[in-house]
């Protein structure tokens, strides 16, 4: 009993601090938009593009820090969006293998990013900095007020985008050929989706770090697909899953002092295992 009251005591103490509240608001918004688009990403077999883009975002961050930009978000956003559009184009081009191109760009960006930081960086704790960008140890707790505004605005925009284009996103995910054949510009929606994915990945880098972003995108979708069978229910479930896991992960990491990103992902893995068995029991996943 005293343990519990101690626990909630600590929790309320933490929640009296603004930066913890900010971290929660931003974390939940980011996890919400990444899980919404995650369903499309997984179903379109685009998850490897998400992975590649997260590495590109790391490279972009390295460039931004070499240039000593006070606010690196715009540059990172720009570079990642352009890469997303290029990757989409090569994916449509049958001559170049899409996945090989992604792999090339993604490891290339990682290597160049680290190299740049090493050569031009003047940080006393380089490996600590790199580690924190890759695994996002505390960045969510140290957001500047400008970062905060950008993160909140962009996540809300992404969520609105998803709601307004929900029907189009479903159609373009389920069968691109059909909607093109019946007079809808599927390429336009593919382009929009690519841009949105790039934005979400840059946002998510703040929450979990660039190596762990894919988890934020993939785990909620895959867990929801274990249990539910319609696109709407999978989307709703993956959003709920993602928000719950993120909130839990944040609480645990704040109280236990564990790294935020890894803790959230660990909670998601547990969530996935639970959904896996729930799916087996309800027969959610046949064939």
């Amino acid at each position: 009993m005293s343990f519990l009251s101690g626990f909630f005591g600590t929790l309320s103490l933490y929640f009296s601090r603004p930066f913890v509240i900010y971290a929660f608001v931003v974390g939940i918004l980011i996890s919400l938009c990444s899980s919404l688009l995650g369903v499309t990403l997984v179903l379109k077999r685009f998850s490897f593009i998400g992975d590649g883009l997260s590495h590109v975002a790391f490279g972009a961050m390295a460039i931004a820090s070499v240039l000593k930009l006070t606010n690196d978000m715009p540059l990172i956003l720009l570079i990642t969006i352009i890469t997303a559009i290029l990757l989409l184009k090569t994916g449509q081009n049958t001559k170049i293998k899409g996945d090989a191109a992604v792999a090339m760009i993604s490891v290339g960006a990682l290597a160049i990013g680290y190299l740049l930081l090493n050569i031009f960086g003047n940080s006393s704790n380089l490996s600590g900095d790199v580690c924190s960008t890759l695994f996002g140890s505390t960045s969510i707790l140290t957001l500047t007020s400008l970062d905060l505004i950008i993160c909140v605005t962009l996540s809300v925009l992404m969520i609105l985008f998803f709601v307004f284009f929900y029907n189009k996103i479903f159609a373009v995910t389920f069968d691109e050929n059909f909607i093109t054949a019946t007079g809808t510009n599927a390429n336009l929606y593919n382009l929009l989706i690519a841009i949105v994915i790039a934005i979400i990945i840059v946002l998510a880098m703040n929450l979990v770090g660039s190596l762990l972003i894919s988890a934020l995108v993939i785990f909620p979708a895959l867990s929801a697909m274990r249990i539910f069978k319609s696109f709407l229910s999978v989307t709703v479930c993956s959003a709920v899953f993602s928000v719950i896991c993120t909130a839990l992960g944040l609480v645990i990491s704040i109280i236990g002092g564990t790294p935020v990103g890894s803790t959230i992902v660990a909670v998601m893995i547990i969530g996935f295992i639970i959904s896996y068995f729930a799916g087996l029991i309800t027969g959610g996943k046949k064939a």
Partner: protein
Amino acid sequence: MALLTCEKLCLGYDNNIIVKDLSFSVNDGDYLCIVGENGSGKSTLMRTVLGLQNPISGDIIFGEGLKKNQIGYLPQQTQVQRDFPASVWEIVLSGCIGQMGFAPFYTSKQKKTADEAIKKMGIEHLKNRCYRELSGGQQQRVLLSRALCATENMLLLDEPVTGLDPKVTADMYELIDKLNKEYNITIIMISHDIDAAVKYASHILHIGKKVFFGTKAEYLKSHESGFFGIREDGENI
């Protein structure tokens, strides 16, 4: 003027010509069957007519006010769809996407269209089921309902009965025939099955080493006179 006219079409990929000099036309109410061996370019022709790829040369002309977003399409099934979480209703409704423009949500009229398409295909009881758990025949009916949502005029079907058992195949053919006769929907169907083509179609287009286009009667006549040799096209399953 015909609903669809193709003039001197050359089809293929990256200047790799598969079909040359193809000309034919489809009138309102026609039932055209496209037959030919595997790999002869039937799907390529259909994809080109639908604007999914460009012809190498030649013209495709839509007439009688037929617009691009008034054509229904039943694709040859792809693998991605197999594990897709989607209900029958969601899929059928997405057939209305061409009429939607930039509006974010479906109108109640579009929902009614989807409801009617589901009724025409006799799958009301499957409306809330998961698509991937349906049998092959049921899945085809769902995709046909979706195609119906997109059109009142013209349906393009790419091998609608592949992989279905004989009974379900026969039902499917009857259903398509009903759409043509009762609802006056122009049908262009790719099929392996020459017997069914001869039974239901009004016109036949044969592509391959030899190209033939004409009415069913003309096709049968040219068949007897040995135009195609000894049923070299008879790889019907």
